[in-house]
């Protein structure tokens, strides 16, 4: 058995950490087109709603939740009571409770201040990419998973903020007729389609999509939460059906 000295072991651990971080970064890189477009559009929307550039910048840097911000904007313009704005944002953010529950076991061995930070910087894209890779992992809480996660959320945060600030300060340059929002939607489609790899997943997104369409008249983007729950339930049901010897695709 060869003996490894302490500095050597540290150097090895650092090299491994860098490799895992880079692996995460490579995963998040192609999705940055989508998130940057959303960030840019969100930045423009804040200024258009009448927020000063300083307040809009503060909001994007601290709140870091595009859909919650977009939901809050019309309420802010209307001068809605603070509790109502908080409640609306909470409803929009409900999906993160589900995301957090799924990702938390991977980080349960860290101390609570670290967990607070890891949770706060969780994003939709970070969640999607992390779970796509590790949902079926036998071991949870490895340094590899931690550094991979950081490789997702740190570059993701930076690109979102840069794009959002660009939207706040330079959004006026883009002609409105371009409808960049649609490019952001298309970019999200490019991320979603490859996730559909089997029959239960296809059933799940069909149900989620139908519910999201039907539930549009619901206030506070509640349809989003309904669709996520419906997608989970139908996915599990389809999986059970498949296991029972149903038609295998």
């Amino acid at each position, binding site marked *: 058995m060869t003996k490894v000295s302490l500095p050597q072991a540290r150097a090895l651990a650092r090299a491994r950490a860098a490799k895992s971080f880079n692996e995460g970064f490579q995963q998040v890189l192609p999705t940055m087109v989508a998130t940057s477009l959303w960030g840019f559009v969100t930045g423009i929307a804040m200024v258009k709603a009448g*927020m000063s550039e300083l*307040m809009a910048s503060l909001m994007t840097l*601290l*709140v870091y939740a595009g*859909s*919650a*911000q977009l939901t809050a904007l019309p309420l*802010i313009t209307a*001068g*809605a009571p*603070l509790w109502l*704005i*908080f409640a609306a*944002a*909470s409803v929009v*953010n409900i999906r*993160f*409770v*589900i*995301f*957090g*529950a*799924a990702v938390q*076991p991977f*980080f*349960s061995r860290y101390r609570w201040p670290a967990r*607070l930070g890891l*949770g*706060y910087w*969780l994003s939709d894209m970070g969640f*999607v990419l992390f779970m796509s890779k590790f*949902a079926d992992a036998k071991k949870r809480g490895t340094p590899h998973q931690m550094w991979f996660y950081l490789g997702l959320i740190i570059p993701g945060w930076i690109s979102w903020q840069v794009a959002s600030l660009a939207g706040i300060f330079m959004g006026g340059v883009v002609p409105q007729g371009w*409808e960049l*929002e*649609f490019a952001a*939607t*298309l970019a*999200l*489609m*490019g991320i*979603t*389609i*490859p996730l*559909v790899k089997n029959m239960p*997943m296809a059933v*799940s*997104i069909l149900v*989620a999509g139908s519910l*999201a*369409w039907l539930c*549009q*008249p619901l206030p506070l983007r509640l*349809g*989003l939460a309904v*669709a*996520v729950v419906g*997608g*989970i339930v*139908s*996915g599990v049901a389809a999986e059970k059906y498949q296991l029972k010897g149903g038609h295998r695709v």
Partner: protein
Amino acid sequence: MFEPGSDGYMLAVIGLLTVCSAIMRAGYFVVGNRIPLTENVRRALRYAPPAALVAIIVPELLPWAEGGRAFFDVRLLAALVAVLVYVRTRSTIAVILSGMGAFWLLRAIL
């Protein structure tokens, strides 16, 4: 101090939304060790990411009009073009470029 339109109101909104982000996202991270989920629930949560993405996309493609009536617009056609392009190319960038191209073209024609 917190009158709508004032800086105080705006700062209060930003502060509250920051707290909201932290509670919703990090809540389970912080206290979750004490309320562990069963393996079945955890497996079920794998279906959450695509469902959430689809739920963001669908209302953008097939929005309901103000009066609560569903309506159809060129975005859906452009999105179909983009999906076909994806099936052929497997490229996300091609999805965005073809979808935007189709959208601008259809809007100009129709």
